[in-house]
């Protein structure tokens, strides 16, 4: 697949041996990887369509080592790509030919569990689920739960501002992170936030969450933990049309209910999940909706009574309420394995991640079906209905010439549609390289320049993860003085991808 990345710096490529030697002076032994065979493990992340061997990989153990590595790289103008568990679905950790990958896998310890202040301090390589595991015994959990939570790292979660199925009620990563230690490209170690709330001055945590590894390397994260609700119960609802399911969602919100989770699957996704797991999903309906309530028993009963009433009012042909924990988990099992389930009915699939205003769902699904026919590719839809985050899975076969390109064109068309109806390009997977060139669909030249100036304040040479997020590689000096007039591009000579 062709993807334009910043042109490799020939002098850096030529100095590879010296750079590797320099890294070895900082991290001894197996902490520096430079042989081709071992580097292959780092050539891509969860977006496997794009691959690139890095110059070298370094696996530090301490913040001081990270600081020295970044300082060394800056001195020698070497680009740096930080990597957590490598589960990004947008190519956020895609290496550069002339860049060093800083892998945080050895930062794998939980440093402190503080039940009194309800926080956990963890190194960035700790997995998302390991945080919940560390506090489960005391009745707590960490709320954001991306579907890759057994593998993805908390540092990567911060970099991508990861979501999950409970965002409407409990927020994304950014709403649950209280502190971060970050090393800048200068090798400076900065601490933001921590155990006190709302540090004065600019909201650094707000910009670091979701900055896709472009502002600094995260070496410590403090998150808030929550007491686990006493009860969680779910409703499994089946509807004769996508419209009636969509209206049910709107009516639930309209009734003042914020469910803990609200997930929709279309017919194809439901069929795939049922075929895979036999969890008892209704097959004669056009849309399945799972609505979860949590809290005390009285809360769950009240919410599910109302949800049942609203669902019937919208013509639901199937209404089932979980009677015990096993049944609740069964309702979810199909949804949670929707991706692998779709993987079984198609050789390959391409997962999209736009967000739309909830009310636009029916319209978007109809337009998507038209596109599906035009591109000759099937599409299955799973939808975080509570927060409007849509995951169309485009089914294709990479071995058939032209299908991958068609899948990508189809995907780009879906994302343009999301923006057209008032939504956004990405809800939780990040821009990375995948949606980079679509950014102008949503933002003007001035908007993007303003974001890039923020990056310049952290990384004036543009050495951290260049080629991600922004479709145009501006030099900071240009951004500093340029005024863009009427949205016209002032420097047509600058590299554009």
């Amino acid at each position, binding site marked *: 697949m062709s993807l334009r990345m910043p042109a490799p710096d020939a002098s850096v490529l030529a100095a590879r041996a010296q750079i590797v030697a320099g890294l070895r002076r900082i991290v001894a032994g197996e902490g520096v990887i430079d042989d081709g065979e071992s580097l292959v493990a780092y050539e891509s992340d969860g977006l496997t369509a794009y691959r690139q061997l890095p110059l070298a990989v370094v696996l530090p153990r301490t913040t001081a080592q990270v600081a020295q590595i970044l300082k060394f790289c800056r001195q020698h103008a070497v680009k740096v790509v930080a990597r957590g568990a490598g589960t990004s679905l947008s190519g956020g950790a895609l290496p550069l030919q002339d860049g060093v990958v800083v892998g945080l896998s050895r930062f794998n310890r939980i440093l402190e569990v503080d*039940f*009194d*202040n*309800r926080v956990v301090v963890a190194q960035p390589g700790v997995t998302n689920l390991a945080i919940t595991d560390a506090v489960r015994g005391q009745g707590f959990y960490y709320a954001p739960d991306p579907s890759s939570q057994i593998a993805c790292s908390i540092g990567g979660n911060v970099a991508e*501002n990861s*979501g999950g199925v409970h*965002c409407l009620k409990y*927020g*994304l990563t*950014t*709403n649950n992170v209280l502190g971060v230690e970050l090393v800048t490209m200068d090798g400076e170690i*900065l601490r933001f936030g921590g155990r*006190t*709330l*709302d*540090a*004065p*001055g*600019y*909201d*650094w945590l*707000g*910009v670091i*969450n*979701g*900055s896709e590894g472009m502002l600094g390397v995260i070496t410590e994260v403090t998150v808030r933990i929550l*007491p686990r*609700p006493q009860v969680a119960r779910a409703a499994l609802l089946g509807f004769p049309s996508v419209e009636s399911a969509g209206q049910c969602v*709107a009516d639930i*919100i*309209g009734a*003042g209910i914020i469910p803990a989770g609200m997930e929709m699957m279309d017919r194809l996704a439901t069929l795939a999940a049922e075929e895979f797991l036999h969890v008892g999903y209704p097959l004669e309906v056009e849309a399945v909706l799972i609505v979860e309530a949590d*809290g*005390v*028993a*009285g*809360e769950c009963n009240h*919410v599910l009574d109302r949800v049942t009433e609203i669902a019937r009012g919208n013509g639901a042909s199937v209404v089932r309420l979980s009677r015990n924990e096993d049944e609740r988990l069964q309702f979810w099992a199909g949804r949670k394995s929707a991706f692998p389930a779709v993987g079984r009915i198609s050789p390959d699939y391409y997962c999209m991640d736009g967000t739309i*205003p*909830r009310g636009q769902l029916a319209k978007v699904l109809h337009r998507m079906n038209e596109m599906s026919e035009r591109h000759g590719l099937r599409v299955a839809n799973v939808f*975080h209905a509570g*927060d*409007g*985050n849509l995951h169309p899975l485009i089914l294709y076969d990479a071995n058939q010439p032209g299908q991958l390109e068609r899948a990508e064109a189809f995907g780009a068309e879906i994302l343009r549609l999301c923006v057209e109806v008032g939504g956004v*390009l*990405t*809800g939780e997977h*990040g*821009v990375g390289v995948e949606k980079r060139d679509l*950014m102008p669909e*949503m*933002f003007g030249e001035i*908007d993007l320049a*303003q*974001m890039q*100036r*923020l990056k310049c*304040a*952290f990384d004036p040479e543009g050495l951290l993860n260049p080629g991600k997020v922004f479709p145009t590689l501006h030099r900071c000096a240009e951004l500093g003085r340029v*005024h863009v007039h009427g949205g016209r591009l002032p420097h047509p000579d600058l590299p554009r991808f």
Partner: protein
Amino acid sequence: MTSSAALRPVNVQEAADAVREAAAAKSMLRIVGGGTRRPLMCASDGNTRELHSSALTGVTRYEPEELVLSVRAGTPLDFVEDLLAERGQMLAFDPPRHVHLHGTLPARTTIGGVLGSGWAGPRRLSAGNVRDHLLGFEAVSGRGEVFRAGGRVIKNVTGYDLSKLMVGSWGTLALLTEVTLRVLPRPQHEATLLVDPLEVDAALALLRRAMALPLEVSCAACLPDGRAALRLEGFRASVDERLRQLAPALGVPRAARAILADESAALWNAVRDVQPFAADAPLLWRLSLPSTAAARTVASVVGTQVGAALFDWAGALVWLAMSAEADAERVRAKVDEAGGHAWRVRAPEALRARLPVAPPQPAPIAALSRRVKQGFDPFDVLGDGPFTSMNAPGIG
């Protein structure tokens, strides 16, 4: 002192023109919403004009089913909250009215001012801060350019989250012109459990234990008289059940009583607006502390003086009133020791120069602030708001 009449742009283009003209004339602008927080801003010189958002008002889009509201930044907060209330919704971060605190009556808080300061009310403990509710915006940067960021959906990671950078920036980076906020359903019912006065450290420990229970306590405060207050909100059946569980779970069955509905709401509005200290206390601090260090830190400054402090956010936010000026300078030292920070909200004239409003920032972060500010406002048209430390000598 500010020079000449205030500017009142009526649309975003006029606002952008005003900023560009100020930059060309090497003069400065101070963004003013309702003007309720004016006393918190650094002194300005004769080269500064006020730019009022009072003509940038009105709702541009309200979609209750989408839980989203877009308004122009000069819209009064009261208007926004009334509009939301009509549809059974609210701004969950509980924006305070500090007009009484700052003695700036009859000014009216605007939505832009709420976002600029980034200060939330008691429900911040459970619903998140102001920054967690701004989904997107349109603004004029200090460069005089109109730009946008974010969107109108809650789940959005498209580009850097500049919305969060705007909240709490006190108008030093850009003039917000239109904002899109996340709104939430207003709870059907509420109740507050009031526990008889305890020593402060015992009261705060009780609040922390309550927050660790799976009962969704939405607000938790220790009032100046030593009573602990715990708020429950939601559907009636849910509130009732949680209230039944709460006192026994905390082991305070007898020394507690509950207040309901309007009476409960009134109590929390008083906490939100810091009413106990609205009138007299000459010196008032807003401290952010780890809850576990709050009682000790306050005692180290004012001793065990009753009635000097209001502890909100389960002890993580302290409003500290001081009558004598003798200890004023110790406050920041003690708060720093505990890993917190202190805003000086009110002080007698004679003390103001010695006690800057905003907490000082560590040098590397102040330098980073400078660089970020430069990217948004390279000609320093918008000033430093309350952040004197951004101008610390030898920085930037």
